C-alpha cells in the first residue's frame, strides 16, 4: 500500500459516493450486484479493491438513462456537458453540474498561482485553441465568425483546421487578429496546435499577449514547449494540465514544473496488477468522484498511466507529485507488455534544433515508424541518437522505419498525438490493464 501519499485521506467521502451511486445510478447498482457486492461490503481501502473497475464503455453504453442520478434531467440548466473527441471507441458524452466541474478545476489549479489568478478572474477571457472536436465548435469553417465561436461562458474558440498541417496562413492571420481583438487573460490550448501558431507568430513578427498558458487536450512534449516559448518567452506562466472529458482537471503543473494530482476532489488510485502501485512504478489511474453529483464515477479506469513520485515539491503544495506517462492507447508494446511510454519517448527525442515535428507509430507488434519534419539545421545522421535509443527500448528484432517527411497527419478528430499505437489501441479496447 501507498503510505502518507494523500490518496486515501478522503476515503470516507469515497464510501459516501459508493452508497450514493448504488442508490441512484442504475448501471452501477447492477455492476455491484453482478460482483456480489453492496456498499456495506466496502469498509476499508482494501475492500475498495474488490469493486470491479468501471470503464468508458459503461458510461457510453448506459448514457443517459443508466448513468444519470435519479431525478436528474438533461434539461437542467445547471448541467454542463462535455464530449470527447468522437473517434471510434473513445467517444463519450459526460454531464455534471457546472459548479462541480468548476470546483474540481479550482482545486486542481490551486497548485499554480499564476494560472489560478487568470482562471478565476471575471469576466472570463479564455482563448481556446484546440482540435475542433475538443472545443465542440466546428471552427474549421473559414466562414465562421468570432461571435459564432464564443461560448456561453465568454471563452473564445479560435479557428482551426481538422488536419493541423493543412491549415492555411489566412486562418493563422485570422487567429492573430482575433487574439488582438479579444485580449485574452488565459490561453487554454492544445500544445501541438499552439506550437504551430507560435511558429506563425514568429514568422509574422507578432508579439503575443503575455498571459498564462494552459497546455492540455493532448500530451505535451519538450519540442512543443520549445516552439511555444520562442514566441511567448514566459516559461513561468506555461503549465501542463491533465484533464478528462469525464471529470475536468485532474492534475496541474506547479511553478516548479511538477504535476500535482488533485486529491481534494477525487479519490485516486494508481493500480498495477489490481493492486496499489509502489512509488515510481508505472500504474493506471482509477478515479472515484466525491461530490454526489448527477453522474458519479466509481473506480473509473482512465486508461492513463502515471508514476507517483516519491518527493516533496519545493512549491510547498500538499497535493502529491505525479508524472503522466501517457494513454495506454499511445503506448508502445512488445510481447503484450509496455516497452516505451510517450513520456519516455519525449525524454529520448528532446527538442533538438533541427526538428520541427515528429511522431512514432506502432502499426504492428514488430513494426514502428518514426516520422519527422526537419528544418535547415538538419544534417544527415542528426536522428541517429533517436534510432539507437529506440532500438534499446523496443528491441533489435523489430523494424523501426525512419521517414523524413514534409507532412504528418492529425487524427480524424483533429488531435495531433506524437505517439500512436494500433497495438495499444487494440489492447485498450480489449480491456488491457497494466
Amino acid at each position: 500500500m501507498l503510505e502518507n501519499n494523500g490518496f486515501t485521506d478522503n476515503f470516507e467521502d469515497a464510501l459516501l459516493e459508493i452508497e450514493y451511486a448504488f442508490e441512484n445510478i442504475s448501471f452501477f447498482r447492477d455492476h455491484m450486484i453482478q460482483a456480489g457486492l453492496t456498499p456495506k461490503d466496502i469498509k476499508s481501502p482494501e475492500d475498495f479493491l474488490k469493486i470491479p473497475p468501471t470503464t468508458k464503455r459503461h458510461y457510453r453504453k448506459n448514457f443517459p438513462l443508466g448513468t444519470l442520478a435519479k431525478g436528474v434531467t438533461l434539461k437542467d440548466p445547471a448541467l454542463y456537458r462535455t464530449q470527447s473527441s468522437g473517434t471510434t471507441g473513445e467517444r463519450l458524452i459526460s454531464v455534471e453540474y457546472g459548479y462541480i466541474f468548476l470546483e474540481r478545476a479550482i482545486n486542481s489549479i490551486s497548485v499554480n498561482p499564476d494560472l489560478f489568478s487568470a482562471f478565476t478572474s471575471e469576466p472570463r477571457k479564455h482563448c481556446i485553441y484546440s482540435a475542433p472536436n475538443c472545443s465542440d465548435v466546428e471552427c474549421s469553417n473559414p466562414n465562421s465568425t468570432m461571435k459564432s465561436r464564443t461560448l456561453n461562458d465568454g471563452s473564445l474558440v479560435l479557428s482551426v483546421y481538422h488536419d493541423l498541417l493543412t491549415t492555411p496562413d489566412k486562418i493563422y492571420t485570422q487567429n492573430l487578429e482575433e487574439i488582438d481583438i479579444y485580449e485574452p487573460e488565459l490561453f487554454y490550448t492544445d500544445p501541438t496546435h499552439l506550437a504551430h501558431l507560435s511558429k506563425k507568430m514568429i514568422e509574422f513578427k507578432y508579439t503575443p499577449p503575455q498571459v498564462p498558458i494552459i497546455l492540455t487536450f493532448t500530451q505535451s512534449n519538450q519540442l512543443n514547449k520549445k516552439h511555444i516559448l520562442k514566441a511567448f518567452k514566459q516559461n513561468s506562466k506555461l503549465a501542463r494540465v491533465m484533464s478528462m472529458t469525464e471529470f475536468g482537471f485532474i492534475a496541474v503543473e506547479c511553478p516548479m514544473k511538477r504535476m500535482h494530482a488533485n486529491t481534494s476532489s477525487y479519490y485516486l488510485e494508481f493500480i498495477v496488477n489490481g493492486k496499489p502501485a509502489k512509488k515510481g512504478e508505472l500504474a493506471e489511474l482509477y478515479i472515484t468522484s466525491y461530490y454526489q453529483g448527477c453522474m458519479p464515477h466509481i473506480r473509473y479506469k482512465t486508461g492513463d498511466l502515471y508514476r507517483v513520485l516519491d518527493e516533496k515539491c519545493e512549491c510547498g503544495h500538499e497535493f502529491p507529485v505525479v508524472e503522466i506517462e501517457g494513454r495506454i492507447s499511445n503506448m508502445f508494446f512488445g510481447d503484450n507488455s509496455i516497452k516505451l511510454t510517450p513520456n519516455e519517448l519525449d525524454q529520448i527525442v528532446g527538442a533538438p534544433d533541427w526538428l520541427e515535428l515528429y511522431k512514432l507509430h506502432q502499426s504492428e507488434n514488430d513494426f514502428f515508424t518514426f516520422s519527422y519534419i526537419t528544418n535547415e539545421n538538419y544534417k544527415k545522421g542528426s536522428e541517429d541518437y533517436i534510432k539507437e535509443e529506440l532500438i534499446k527500448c523496443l528491441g533489435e528484432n523489430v523494424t523501426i522505419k525512419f521517414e523524413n517527411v514534409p507532412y504528418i497527419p492529425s487524427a480524424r478528430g483533429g488531435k495531433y498525438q506524437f505517439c500512436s499505437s494500433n497495438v495499444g489501441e487494440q489492447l485498450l479496447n480489449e480491456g488491457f490493464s497494466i
Partner: protein
Amino acid sequence: MEEKKTLNVIQDFPSLSRKIDGNNITYLDSAATSLKPKSVIDSICSYYSENSSNIHRGKHYLSEEASNVYEECRIKVAQLIESFSDEVIFTKNTTESINLVAHGLNFNKETDNVIICTDSHHSNYIPWIAAANAHIVKLNSDGVIDINHFKELIISKKPKLVAISHCSNVTGIYAPIDKLLKLAKEAGALTFLDVAQSIPHRKINVKKLDVDFIAFSPHKMLGPTGIGILYGKRNILEKLNPLILGGGTVDWVENGSYVLRKAPHKFEAGTPHIAGAYGFMAAIDYINKIGYPQIEAHDNELSKVLYSEAIKRDYIDIMVKNLDYDRSAILSFGINNNNNLGDIARALSDSYGLMCRSGHLCAQPLVDELTSGEVIRVSAYIYNTKQEIINFFNALDTIYQIYG
C-alpha cells in the same frame, strides 16, 4: 533462380486459384485493371458486413467509424504521394478526375490553349479537347512524344495547361516527365499528369515533381473499382470549380444561395464510394508492405523478359521498336498480316488461360498512327512471373501457326 526474383504473392490473390475449363489463370491484363488481394477484398467486405452506414452525416457509432476509415484513406493517399490530406480528392476514377480539372478551370474553348499528347489515353485527351483549345504534341520517328514539337507548342501557344501521361497504357513507355514538367512550368502553364499506369509500379512524389495535378485509379493498383484520386495543389484547388454539386459540398444553404465548403469536400457531392475507400486503404497497406523499390524492380525485370521474348519472333510487330526507352511491363503488338487479333486473344484465353487485351486500348490516335489497326496488349504486375511470360509466348507461337 527465376522464382527468387518474383515477389511471391500469388497466394494472396484468390482469383488466381480459379480454374477455367481446367486451365489455371495467368492474368496479363493489369494495365486494364489489377487483381485484388484478399486483404483488399476482406476490407471491402468488412464495410458491408460490419458497418454499411453513411459517412459525415450522423453521430451514431457506425457512421463515425465509417467516416474515420474514409478520412484515414485520404491521409494514406496523401502520404503515398507526399501531399497534404486536403489536396486529395476522391472521385469515381481517373477519367472523372481529369474531367473535373478540364471543366473546373473555366477555360475559354476558343482562346485558352492547352497542350495534350498523342500517346495519351482517351481520358487524358477528349476532356481537354472538349473544354479548351487543345493542341496535340506529335510523335517522333520512334513513335514517342516529340520533345521538339512539345517545346514548339509550349512557346508558340502559351498554354494555360499542359496535360501529360506518365506512362503510356499502350507502349508502356515512361515519358521524361521531369523535363516536360519543367518546360511547361517555365512557360507558366499549369501541369496535369496522368499517373494511372505508373503509380502501380513506381513511387510518385508530387512535391518533388512540383506538379499541379495528378490523377490515378486505385483499381489499377490492387484497389477496388469505382473510386479515383485527384491530387491538386492547395492554392489551385481553391480556384477550381466543382464538377457536380449537392449534399456534402456546402457549408450553408439558404433562400436560393449557398456557400461552398473548402477543398477537398466541395468536390465530393453525394454519398461516395465508402467501401472503395476501405479497399483502397488496404491496397495501400499491401503495396507499402512490399515496398515500391521491390515492385519497381519486379516490373523492370518482367519488362525485360517481355521485350526480349518479343524481339525473338519476327511475326510480332512491336509498337515502338527502339528498345532503349524506359518501359513498364506493358507490351502492345500487331501480328504480321493478321487482323483477327480478337480471335487470337480469345484463343489464348480459352485454350491456355492467358488473359490479355486486344483492340485500340482507348488510345486510338496512337494505335492508328503506329499500326494498321488493333493490337494485342500484355501487361504484367506483382503477381506475374517471368515463366508466365515465357509461357505466353510459347502459346502464341502455337496459335500463330494456325491463325498466322
